[in-house]
Each structure stands twice: as structure tokens, then as C-alpha cells.
């Protein structure tokens, strides 16, 4: 099939493909090399993406279209505060249907069965708030009307296994938070993030008791829902014109998610480490493909010189090497992505990380693989200069 495709596209004998196919062991090593490099790149991007996603996962709990934050915003829980009255101003903007204040703070939770502590992100909401996208949370909000009651993330990292087990049995489980005893009255599933071991949801009143430095007049974030049929970008722009940029930043939910990911990419070691891993993967692939192509060119020098003697141009020979490079990229990518899907699934199952394969990632990695192989081919073609047609006699 590859024979026919190349013949029809290039109108010539598929010499590069034939040479690759002729040396099967070399072809297998080359494809394995490209696949390993691709897996390495996929895993780096996958884990990095999953870690970034954990920073915005809490926001996905809410049915918000637009979020108002402090201009000093970094990520949820580290966002500073903005005046609560901005909620009422925003509600007056055309296209805004409803809104709610969200309080966010991080606190150390101590399990009664252990001296170890966990860093938990606490969300303070109005118990009448109708903005949770997850039914398991929305259905339990009424439990938060009781003072010092919390809903707790069952996926919180250890040592809260025993606490979660008791709460699963329907018991109110006491835990100590910043020196105050509160009760876990229900559970939900969210998962840990880079910065936090887990999450909890409290009423706004309980939240202010746990974080006395916070003020009821200030909000960590304001979540807005737009009217059905309204254009979210247009509504956000109208809000921006109404609210002062000095204390409020207006973003759509997706803009905020992208902003947090970009912030983490550029300002945290995670971004650097995994980007470095991607580069390492690229160069490993480059080195393997270069070795293979270079050895292949070397082995075929007399044949290439013969072609030159027959009247083939140097450009034709470059085309043969690039044909090989392109085929290695295309054929090596297939096992690379298939193996990556399996590893994503295994990693996700083993770590609770939301490791996903967005549609743009295979396109990116395929482009990188092509660049890697064509770059290798370009370097390997330097050896073609040694193919002197006068030497074949």
C-alpha cells in the first residue's frame, strides 16, 4: 500500500521505503526508537497537562460561565480578594442571569486517627447556592446549614482513609481544622492537586469561622451565570466596562482555566521540568533516527553513487532520505500513540490524576515527530556528499 501511495504521489519508485523494508531489523529498531520518543513526549505532556488541570478542577465543580477575581489572581486559593459589591454590580449587567460569592482558603486538616496533617482547600458558599454542577454536591448542600459542618473530598490524600470510611457509613466525623473541631457530614469526589491534598466545602458562615481574617464584605471569587442564548464573550466585555479593572479581573471560565495553566507553565518548576522532559524525548528520537538513517545512507553509498552516475541528481537522493525520515515518523507515531493511550489509562487509574488526551496533543506530537525525523534526515544527508559517482568504478 505504501508502495502505491508513494508511486502515485511522487511518480517514482519508492526507493526509500524499499530500503527501509529491506532491512527489517533496522526498520523495527527505528520504529521502536520513534515510538519510545513519542511515548516519552506524550507522557510528559500528559502528566503536565493533568497537573495543570488539577489547578482548575475545583472551578469545574461550579456551573459558572464568568468568574470575577482579584487582579492579583494566580490560581484558586491564591487569588487575593475583591469587594463583594462587585457581585451586585455585575448582576445589573445585561446578559448576567445569576451569581454567587465564593470564598476560598487553605487549611491544615488533622485526622483524629493520625498526627499527620493534610493541606485542604476549603470553599465557602451560600447553602442556598444553586451553582454546583455535580449533583452529589448540590444534593448535600442543605447539610451545611448546621454550624461547623463540612462536605469532604473522599479522594483526599492519606491519612484520611479512616475518616472517609466512617463518613461513607453516614456518620458525622469530627476533624480538627486550624485548631477548631468541625464535622464531616458528607462526601464528594474531586481529587488532589499539586498544591492541595484535597478539598472541602463549607457554608459561608462556617468558612468565616475557620478563616477569621477573611471578611464577609470581600470575596475570593464571584461566579456568574449568563442568560440562556447570551454570548459569554460579549457579556464578559460588558462587565469589564462596568467594573473597575483596579480591583476586579473578568474572565470567562475557559479563559481562567487557560490563564492558570499558562501561569503554571511559565512560573512553576512543573512547567520547566516537563517541558525539559519533552525536549529530552525529542532529542532521544532525533539521535535514534539519525543513527538509523546515517547507517542506512552509509550502507547504500555505492548504490547512491551508481544512481548519480546514471544521471540522478543530488536532490533526488535527498528525496530518498527524506522519504525514509517521513515514513519513520509516520509509522513510528502509530505504536507511540497507542502505547501512550494505554499508559495514560494505567497512570490515571493508579494516581487519580485526570490524565487525558486532548485532540490537539496528537497533532502536536505528530508535528514534533515529523520535525524530529526530518531534522535527523537533514543531518544524515550530509553523508550523501560522500557518494561520488567517480568512485563506483
Amino acid at each position: 500500500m505504501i508502495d502505491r501511495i508513494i508511486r502515485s504521489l511522487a511518480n517514482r519508485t519508492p526507493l526509500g521505503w524499499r530500503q527501509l523494508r529491506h532491512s527489517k531489523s533496522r526498520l523495527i529498531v527505528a520504529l521502536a526508537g520513534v515510538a519510545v520518543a513519542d511515548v516519552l513526549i506524550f507522557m510528559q505532556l500528559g502528566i503536565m497537562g493533568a497537573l495543570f488541570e488539577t489547578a482548575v478542577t475545583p472551578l469545574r465543580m461550579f456551573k459558572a460561565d464568568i468568574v470575577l477575581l482579584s487582579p492579583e489572581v494566580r490560581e484558586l486559593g491564591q487569588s487575593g480578594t475583591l469587594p463583594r459589591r462587585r457581585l451586585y454590580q455585575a448582576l445589573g449587567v445585561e446578559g448576567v442571569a445569576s451569581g454567587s460569592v465564593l470564598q476560598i482558603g487553605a487549611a491544615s486538616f488533622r485526622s483524629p486517627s493520625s498526627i499527620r496533617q493534610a493541606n485542604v482547600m476549603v470553599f465557602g458558599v451560600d447553602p442556598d447556592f444553586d451553582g454546583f454542577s455535580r449533583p452529589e454536591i448540590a444534593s448535600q448542600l442543605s447539610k451545611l446549614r448546621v454550624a461547623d459542618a463540612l462536605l469532604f473530598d473522599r479522594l483526599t490524600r492519606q491519612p484520611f482513609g479512616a475518616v472517609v470510611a466512617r463518613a461513607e457509613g453516614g456518620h458525622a466525623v469530627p476533624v480538627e481544622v486550624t485548631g477548631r473541631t468541625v464535622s464531616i457530614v458528607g462526601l464528594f469526589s474531586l481529587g488532589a492537586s499539586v498544591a492541595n491534598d484535597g478539598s472541602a466545602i463549607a457554608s459561608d458562615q462556617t468558612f468565616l469561622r475557620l478563616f477569621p481574617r477573611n471578611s464577609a464584605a470581600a470575596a475570593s471569587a464571584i461566579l456568574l451565570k449568563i442568560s440562556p442564548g447570551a454570548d459569554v464573550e460579549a457579556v464578559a466585555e460588558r462587565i469589564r466596562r462596568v467594573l473597575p479593572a483596579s480591583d476586579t479581573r473578568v474572565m470567562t471560565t475557559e479563559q481562567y482555566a487557560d490563564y492558570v495553566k499558562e501561569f503554571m507553565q511559565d512560573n512553576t518548576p512543573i512547567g520547566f521540568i516537563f517541558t525539559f522532559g519533552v525536549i529530552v524525548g525529542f532529542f532521544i528520537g532525533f539521535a535514534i533516527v539519525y543513527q538509523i538513517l546515517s547507517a542506512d545512507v552509509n550502507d547504500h553509498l555505492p548504490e547512491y553513487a551508481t544512481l548519480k552516475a546514471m544521471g540522478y541528481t543530488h536532490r533526488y537522493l535527498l528525496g530518498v532520505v527524506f522519504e525514509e525520515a517521513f515514513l519513520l515518523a509516520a509509522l513510528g507515531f502509530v505504536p507511540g500513540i497507542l502505547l501512550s493511550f494505554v499508559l495514560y489509562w494505567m497512570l490515571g487509574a493508579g494516581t487519580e490524576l485526570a490524565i487525558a488526551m486532548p485532540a490537539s496533543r496528537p497533532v502536536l506530537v505528530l508535528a514534533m515527530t515529523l520535525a524530529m525525523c526530518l531534522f535527523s534526515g537533514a543531518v544524515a544527508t550530509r553523508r550523501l556528499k560522500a557518494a561520488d559517482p567517480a568512485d563506483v568504478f
Partner: protein
Amino acid sequence: MIDRHHRDIAHQHEQSGPAIEAAAVRHTFGSGDTARQVLVDFNIEVAQGEMVLLMGPSGCGKTTVLTLVGALRSLQSGFIRTLGKDLREADERAMIEVRRRIGFIYQAHNLHQSLTVRENIGMALEVHRPRVFANEADLIDAALDDVGMLGWADAFPATLSGGQKQRVAIARAVVASPSLILADEPTAALDKANGRQVVDLLHDLAKRRGSAILMVTHDSRILDAADRIVEMEDGRIVNVETRQRPSTKSFNQSTVKDRRDQQACEPQQQK
């Protein structure tokens, strides 16, 4: 029908005058103290349809003549006109064009191991693209038939004997009906029977297709196949012997018969 195709191609390569004219050619390898002059005022002329053997001890400059005449190497001094093209001022593109009109045969057959016999021969036609021959498949079949290898068209070179590979190399060299064939020791790696057969084939094909042949050889067993024998020593021609050959017709009849006899004795190769 095949002959008509051959004529069509030959017409495109048609040119008047000798296939090769070389005069006062000098060539030196290296420079300074290590410089070594391998050709000294070398002169030769090969007419169309003529088969000339170039003989002499190793290092006397025979192969350098082939590479210079074949536009594989740049001319340093003197004059060479190959197939009507003056090589003194030929740039890379012009030299490539000249090469495309020449059939090369090497001591090592230099077939592509990853291509079938048919595809190897097809490469000699493909080099002329975008110009496409009317019936490439027929031309290849005819060339293979001429060298007695039609039954091996889909075999890979690794499955062929040395003699068979050389015959495929000859088919590759002649398939596009080149006006000139340059051969370097084509019988060196072959036994007596196969060597003789290869030379007879070459002579036979060259006469029928009107190609000139300049062949470098040490093989004294094939001298009778030549129209002319040129002996070289230390970069110079020291002797030229013009041979009285049988007529083309009688030679062709004898060689084809010999070839069939030898094929009948040869063990069948597995494809």
C-alpha cells in the same frame, strides 16, 4: 514492436560524429609533493557502433579515462567531447544530462538489493522523468529478454548468481538504448563461460542498438570481441590494434546460440 521503441529512443539520442573524442587529456590526482599524473596527452576517438577495449596494467589511467569520458569527473586539461557535448565547459547540470545518455556497467554490478530485477532496470528509464517512455514495461521486458533474464524479472538481486546479476546490470545499461556504453571490468568477477557470455551479449546488443562501447578490461579471453584494442601504460596509449571481426550477423547468430547452450547447462536459479 520493441525494436520500434528502441529506434524511437535512439532517435532522441541521435548525434552526428564520433561517440567519444578526446585529445591532449591530462589528469593529475593530488597536489604538491603527492601529485600523481595519471593521464598524459591522452587521445582517443570511438565511433558510433564501435566496441573498443581499453587495456593496460593497474594504475595506468584506464578507469580515469572512463570517469572523464562519462562526465563523472571534471576535466582538468585537454578536450573531451562525449556524445557531441564538449565537457570542457560543462556545468554540473550539463554533466548530468550527458550521464543520462550513457549506459554504465561496473565490475561490481551495483544493483539495488531492495528492488526487484525489473525495478532495478526501470531506474534507468525513470531517470529521464518527467519524460516517460511509451511502453516502459515492454522496454524492460525486451532488455531482460535480450540478456536471457526475463524469467527473473520479479526476483531480488540477492537470489541471483554473479553472472545473472551482471546480465541484469547490462540490461539496465542498455534499456534506454544509450548511444554510449562505458564498462569497467564487467567480466572480472565472472568465470570464463559467464565472462564470455557477458561480452558477447554486450557486443550483440551494441551492434543491434547502434551504441558505442568503451570497455576497460584485463581479460585477455575476450579480445576477439573488440573492434579495436587500445593498450595504455603510464597514462599514455602505447599500442592500438584494430581487429578483423566477423560480420555482425554471423557474430550475433553465434553468440545467441552460445548463450542458449550455456543457459541450458546452467542450473536453474530459484526466484
